[in-house]
């Protein structure tokens, strides 16, 4: 077996600067005053971009076989399915902590 095989690789410092810039962008998004939904979508996209950079270049997935990439993608697929199923199942069960202050009931309509 080729125990000392080395990888072709990109400039690691370039990846580092990309990750640093994306982290700063994440923090900046918090202060833009955009609607919550937009902020959540932007933050999720930035996090996925950072995670992809780490997986593709630091973990060398970009240079591995396609099948290994599918092995790595499996947890993301399972996690996404789990979120969809749980949200679908859990949404009608909105809960409140026993210690939380009570919310006033809306005024009755006459």
């Amino acid at each position: 077996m080729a125990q000392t095989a080395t990888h072709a690789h990109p400039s690691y410092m370039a990846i580092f600067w990309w990750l640093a810039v994306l982290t700063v962008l994440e923090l900046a998004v918090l202060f833009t005053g955009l609607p919550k939904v937009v902020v959540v979508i932007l933050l999720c996209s930035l996090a996925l971009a950072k995670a992809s950079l780490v997986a593709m270049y630091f973990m060398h997935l970009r240079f591995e076989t396609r099948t290994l990439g599918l092995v790595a993608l499996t947890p993301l697929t399972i996690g996404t399915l789990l979120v969809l199923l749980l949200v679908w199942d859990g949404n009608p069960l909105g809960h409140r902590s026993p210690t939380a202050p009570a919310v006033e009931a809306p005024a009755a309509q006459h």
Partner: protein
Amino acid sequence: MSQVAEMRAGAAVEPAETPLTPESWGKLGMWIFLAGDAVGFGVLLASYGVMRATSFDWPNPYHVLGINLTAFMTFLLICSSVTMVKALESLGAGDRSRAQLFLLLTALGGATFVSLQAYEWTHLIERGMRIGGNPWGATLFGTSFFMVTGFHGLHVTAGVVYLLSVLGAVSRQADVRAKYNMVEITGLYWHFVDLVWIMVFTFMYLI
């Protein structure tokens, strides 16, 4: 005689190469372990998301937890990932001392991360945050926070021990290039820990 029996008898039978990671079976093993571990983290984060989405009184994590320290911790882990790939690069070039230095820096980055996490936990516990409750709202806020960050912190701690043991192995090996595969597998684990923190930071602190 079976292939295994031939190998045991000392016959020159080369073990079959895995088509996915021709470098070694160990690398494939680590990828499979990481895929399983990622499902564990995925379940934790998915559960967190659903608990939060269905709660009426979930506190705003950004206001309760603060992000200055954790933003620095994120930056620290990214830096430690860079030192890890630099260690591998140095090993590929046969430069033992640089590889040792970068491995040590990576372990130090991890140890600092865990120390800062312990500081953050202490601060939050002093403010009343517990696994079973907190002063700001939903009980599960504290439960999920300690569970997810604790599980990740445990991975970082294990990673530091792993890195130090690999550093020892590199130091003892006469031909450092022979340890390239071992360090690459260690790097996979360490980058995974960094990758998971990127998701934890976004979901538990920023959103």
